[in-house]
């Protein structure tokens, strides 16, 4: 024991998932160099299990109905941040009219990052392609031009620099999920690692 050592305040607030502490700032986590994605070549692609593709350019994304969710976010490295406000396009809007029988998606990013989620978790007003944070364009270090925002799961599922989602019949583990992290990642059930 280290006499007098407390570490970062670990909140016992009932409204935080277990093992999380509150932070006021917005830590930057990255597993690699920050990709620079010019808006005139940016695109978002949904690829179905049959290979059909649905594409949006930046201008086309901005022309879709926009939403401004205010949500709490929870990082698996144990920080949580309250009441963050974003602007983006709901995945319900993007998936509307996409013909698929798949149950899972693998999101993929500029720079090569991937993460897997059940398709149902992208539906029902719970997931967005977000391009604006607190009223300003999303900074590149936080995933701009656009990132996935799925705040009910640990934040590594909210892929930065998102480029598209691939619809898959089976759950295909992504960048962290193949290296020990949980395939679903529910912070309220503390699903950090495989088997949790």
């Amino acid at each position, binding site marked *: 024991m280290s006499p007098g050592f407390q570490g970062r305040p670990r909140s016992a607030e009932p409204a935080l998932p277990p093992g999380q502490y509150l932070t006021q700032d917005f*830590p*930057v*986590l*990255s*597993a*690699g*160099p*920050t990709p620079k994605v010019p808006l005139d070549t940016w695109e978002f692609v949904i690829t179905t299990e049959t290979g059909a593709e649905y594409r949006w350019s930046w201008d086309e994304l901005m022309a879709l109905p926009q939403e401004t969710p205010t949500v709490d976010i929870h990082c*698996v*490295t144990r920080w949580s941040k309250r009441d963050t406000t974003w602007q983006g396009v709901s995945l319900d809007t993007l998936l509307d009219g996409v013909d698929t029988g798949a149950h899972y998606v693998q999101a993929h990013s500029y720079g*090569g990052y991937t993460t897997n989620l059940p398709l149902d978790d992208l539906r029902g007003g719970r997931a967005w392609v977000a391009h604006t944070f607190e009223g300003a364009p999303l900074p590149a270090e936080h995933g701009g031009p656009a990132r996935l925002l799925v705040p009910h799961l640990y934040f*590594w599922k909210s892929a930065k620099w998102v480029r598209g989602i691939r619809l898959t019949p089976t759950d295909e583990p992504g*960048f*962290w999920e*193949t*290296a*020990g*992290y949980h395939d679903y990642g529910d912070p309220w059930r503390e699903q*950090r*690692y495989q088997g949790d």
Partner: protein
Amino acid sequence: MTDMSYLDGNMLDGPLRELFAVDLSTASGRCENCGMLGPMAGLRVYSHAPGLVGRCPNCSGVMLRLVRSPDRAWLDLRGSTYLQVPMPLDQPHPGPL
């Protein structure tokens, strides 16, 4: 802005020595993506992340991923085709099989 958020492969030594008895930071690794052979100590390590990510300094391909939970560790080396580990000459070795 240039990206300066990485560290050297030197820092992998402590975490890897939890798993292995040899000091892998003095080993060389070959990048699966670009073929470059170089010291693991020369990898660019991104540590502000859910795990440690070691990238090739030449092509930035991912050569190593290390995730540590309280009771388990995962080491993913699929981006490295081999590790070349210096061995002391005075140890008997089996020769080619």
